[in-house]
């Protein structure tokens, strides 16, 4: 009887979802049905779907469900359910995120309600997993068992989540809102860079927290500032709510790229920020909190194991992945996952092992691993061998931890294939047979400056960028060192070198084998691999990891800031300016050559915004005409200058020295346009010439963009578009290269339609089809 009762308690979800969240989830099925029936517009459905924790993936019609795992604590029964849902509706691979969420991938939209309802059965929810919401409230992965901690912070993280999740306004903030609890100043949970970070402290025997706010990573990372020296534990909810209100009121809803709390902090300054907070805090102190106030439920007792055998002289097996806990005789096992991925089957096994040999609790960690805690020393061997049976090597896996964002493979903003680099580093370690001494040093990789891989808080971080070498683009990484998140001493990493992507694995292996992973030694080593004018690069340096195509930025879209693209544009405009300066002191043929170079660089600068990256001069000028001259962004006379430049290059003209001032003028205008770009990569200055309305209506064949749509669905969609126009009218399509451009026009021809034109532009094609019947 007693035992059964214990079991029940163990099955009760740790985070108790507010009733309103349950209702929201139950209403989701009808919302999806309405969307599928075509009664809801895709755009409004998306606005509803993302805050429900459902993201569209790059593969068409497939969705990712991001499940909140409060404080990273998850029960075996919950894992089993997640695994089952992933197998039944997803791709059978489960993903652990750096914010302790668990994701199910590749779910069809019509099955997303099944997934959400299935999760609800075990008390889990994706509500608030995405969008401008209170995101998962995270905590130290070893909260409650870590010998270093002041006290267990998980119950406070859970209570904060339970409290905030009940309000509708928590799902409609200016931008996302991340709350983090760290059990001590070591800050394993990264409270130093959160929107609100709580650090556990005990003062005069009383539990409480130092509170920091306004931190965040992303494109413009910032360390949080202290807003409370010490608040007693009973005031945690008041603080979290007060900061939320500051954010709600002051966050910039008009510009999502500048909306996070750290921009409020940046805008008003630290003093004013703290004052705004104090006002809200006092307001709450006077009026009291609204809504249901959850009880902070201590978790000790729920997940206790029987006393470890007192007589055992067992020395606790130690190692990188096995750590002693504060209760003598117990330890935590880290299950290292490759970039956070684990198969659904293995996940179930992990739950079972935690149930049988641990305390019936699994944790997700910020390094995208899983953790089984409270394993008795005498059970470790058994647990290790059972884990080994499912391919998780707790003892042997000692390679340095590598964390990477998803990268350019699936992310539209990404520059470099960061996951490819992570795999290459691991391979390099395996190849060199290196047993690294400094395996505690985690490396973090972001494919672009948006720092989703948290590169700026790692001891060693890499940030993807692009450089033009010998006229071609090459993937590079900035190497950062010194990032750390210790309470009050948090620092963002500083860039010490910029190294070709293909040199990074060698650099890392060399550093670890020499023990030179920190300080000047590492810096010196990194410089060795930097680009110099003399460096000769093998062909593969122009290809990113795992890519057979030469590195390119074509097709990348504007992102949080499009920072990577800004870099590349800067290179070109600098080149143009330098050339124009140089030409001033030159004569004759040399001057012509330099001016020509300036014209090409200026014309090329902005093309990347339009998703194209021509390499031949002729193509550059043609694209420039289409995207910048025709729409009126630069003066129409520019065409003549470019024509002259081409004539000179072809030998039909003796000199372009007489165009010097016009070319300089072009560069000035290009720079003006470049500097005016906003976060969405739109020009903020007026065009030189307004496109004439009459012309516009004439040339307004709106192309149907079918890039990213696979065969034969692209033809299906193209055909449906063709049916919308009258016989004799022309449909313009944008298609991917490869199969799409091979198949779609041919299919139209076979069906008696008239393909008028197939034109290559960058990495895609535009196709014109006239409806014949």
């Amino acid at each position: 009887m007693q035992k059964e009762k214990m079991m029940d308690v163990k099955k009760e979800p740790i985070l108790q979802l507010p009733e309103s969240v349950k209702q929201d989830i139950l209403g989701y099925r009808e919302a999806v049905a309405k969307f599928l029936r075509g009664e809801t517009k895709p755009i409004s459905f998306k606005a509803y779907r993302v805050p429900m924790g459902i993201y569209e993936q790059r593969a068409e019609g497939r969705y990712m469900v991001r499940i909140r795992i409060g404080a990273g604590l998850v029960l075996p029964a919950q894992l089993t359910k997640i695994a089952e849902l992933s197998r039944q509706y997803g791709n059978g691979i489960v993903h652990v995120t750096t914010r302790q969420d668990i994701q199910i991938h590749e779910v069809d939209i019509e099955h997303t309600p099944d997934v959400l309802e299935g999760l609800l059965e075990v008390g889990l929810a994706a509500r608030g997993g995405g969008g401008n919401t209170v995101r998962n409230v995270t905590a130290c992965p070893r909260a409650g068992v870590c010998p270093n901690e002041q006290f267990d912070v998980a119950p406070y993280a859970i209570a904060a989540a339970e409290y905030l999740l009940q309000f509708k306004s928590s799902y409609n903030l200016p931008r996302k809102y991340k709350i983090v609890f760290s059990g001590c100043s070591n800050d394993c949970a990264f409270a130093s860079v959160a929107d609100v970070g709580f650090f556990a402290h005990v003062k005069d025997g009383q539990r409480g927290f130092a509170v920091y706010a306004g931190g965040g990573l992303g494109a413009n990372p910032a360390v949080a500032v202290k807003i409370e020296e010490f608040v007693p534990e009973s005031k945690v909810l008041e603080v979290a709510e007060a900061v939320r209100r500051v954010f709600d009121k002051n966050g910039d809803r008009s510009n999502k790229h500048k909306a996070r709390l750290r921009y409020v902090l940046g805008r008003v300054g630290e003093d004013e920020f703290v004052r705004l907070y104090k006002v809200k805090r006092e307001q709450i102190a006077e009026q009291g909190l609204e809504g249901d106030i959850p009880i902070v439920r201590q978790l000790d007792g729920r997940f206790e194991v029987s006393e470890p055998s007192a007589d055992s002289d067992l020395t606790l097996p130690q190692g990188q992945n096995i750590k002693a806990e504060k209760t003598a005789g117990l330890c935590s096992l880290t299950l290292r996952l490759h970039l956070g991925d684990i198969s659904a089957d293995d996940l179930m096994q992990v739950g079972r092992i935690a149930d049988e040999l641990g305390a019936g609790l699994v944790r997700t960690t910020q390094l995208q691993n899983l953790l089984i805690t409270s394993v008795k020393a005498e059970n470790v061997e058994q647990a290790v061998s059972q884990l080994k049976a499912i391919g998780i090597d707790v003892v042997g896996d000692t390679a340095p931890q590598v964390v990477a964002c998803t990268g350019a493979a699936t992310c539209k903003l990404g520059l470099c294939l960061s996951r490819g680099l992570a795999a290459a580093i691991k391979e390099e370690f395996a190849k060199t047979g290196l047993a690294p001494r400094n395996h505690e040093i985690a490396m973090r990789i972001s494919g672009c400056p948006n720092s989703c891989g948290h590169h700026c808080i790692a001891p060693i971080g890499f940030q993807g960028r692009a450089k033009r070498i010998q006229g071609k683009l090459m993937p590079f990484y900035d190497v950062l060192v010194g990032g750390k998140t210790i309470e009050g001493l948090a620092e963002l990493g500083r860039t010490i070198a910029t190294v070709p992507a293909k040199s990074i694995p060698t650099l890392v292996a060399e550093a670890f084998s020499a023990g030179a992973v920190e300080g000047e030694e590492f810096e010196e080593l990194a410089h060795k691999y930097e680009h110099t004018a003399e460096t000769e690069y093998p062909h593969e340096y122009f290809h990113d990891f795992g890519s057979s195509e030469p590195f390119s930025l074509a097709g990348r879209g504007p992102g949080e800031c499009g920072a990577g693209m800004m870099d590349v544009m800067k290179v070109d405009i600098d080149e143009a300016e330098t050339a124009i300066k140089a030409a001033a002191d030159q004569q004759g043929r040399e001057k012509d050559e330099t001016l020509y170079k300036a014209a090409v660089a200026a014309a090329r600068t902005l093309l990347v915004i339009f998703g194209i990256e021509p390499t031949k001069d002729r193509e550059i000028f043609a694209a420039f005409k289409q995207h910048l001259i025709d729409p009126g962004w630069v003066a129409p006379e520019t065409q003549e200058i470019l024509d002259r430049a081409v004539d000179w290059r072809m030998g039909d003209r003796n000199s372009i020295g007489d165009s010097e001032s016009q070319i300089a003028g072009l560069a000035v205008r290009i720079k003006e346009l470049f500097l005016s770009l906003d976060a969405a990569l739109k020009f903020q200055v007026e065009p030189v010439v307004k496109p004439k309305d009459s012309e516009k209506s004439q040339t307004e064949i709106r192309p149907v963009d079918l890039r990213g749509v696979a065969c034969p669905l692209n033809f299906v969609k193209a055909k449906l578009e063709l049916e919308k126009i009258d016989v004799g009218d022309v449909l313009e399509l944008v298609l991917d290269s490869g199969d799409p451009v091979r198949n779609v026009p041919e299919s139209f021809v076979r069906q008696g339609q008239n393909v008028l034109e197939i034109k290559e532009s960058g990495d895609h094609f535009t196709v014109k089809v006239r409806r014949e019947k």
Partner: protein
Amino acid sequence: MKLTEQQIRRYSRNIILEEVGGEGQQKLLESKVLIIGAGGLGAPAGLYLAAAGVGTIGVIDADKVDLTNLQRQVIHHTDDVGTKKVVSARNKMLAINPDITVKTYQHRAMAANIREIIREYDFVIDATDNFPAKFLINDACYFEKKPFSHAGILRFDGQLITVLPGETTCYRCIFGAPPPAGDVPSCSQAGVLGVLAGVIGSLQATEAIKYILGIGDLLTNQLLTYNALTMDFRKVSLERNPRCPICGENPEITELKDEEQAACDPDN
């Protein structure tokens, strides 16, 4: 109505076809087909029409699923034994395609009710197993001017014809009246190869779809016969019979009546 993203994907292989396209798919979604008999012929016809996205499908059958049906009536599963056939058939069609509407009529097609039912459909599939019903359907479709597909199967042989009443050869043009009871053995007495029902029922669905889309040549004024043992498909050309008792020059039949004869499977 615009096709939804899901519909575009579901019907992509239809839409790709030059003769179908989005417009053809729209026609299918807006069309209504009545299947009389949810047995061997009705099973494949119902499944394929549902899959193709025929927007409304009606099913008439009075019987319940019997274990002896399962050898050929693939729309019914072992678990369905004892269930009403129309319910079992509807569930399968909706499982294949929840996009569509299925209307069920759990009774025999009789002179008293059939005209009213077929009136609201665009095309009728005669998937019955007995002569009285086949003549009744022919006559009802004549009076309502509804195109229909007739088919019959026995042992290893099947036959098929499409009738545009008043325009092309009808069932009575060929056969006049039901044979005397006992002249032709029934399936339960003579047996039938299960897959034969699949072949012929699928051909009926093909005719329905072609009619809705207005494509190809319908099997009119021609009786198709098929022998599964020899794999002979033969088309016998026919003409309208001026002495046809219903569509001839001096029709004798002016109203519907129920013919008397035992069904193919009287134990059913």
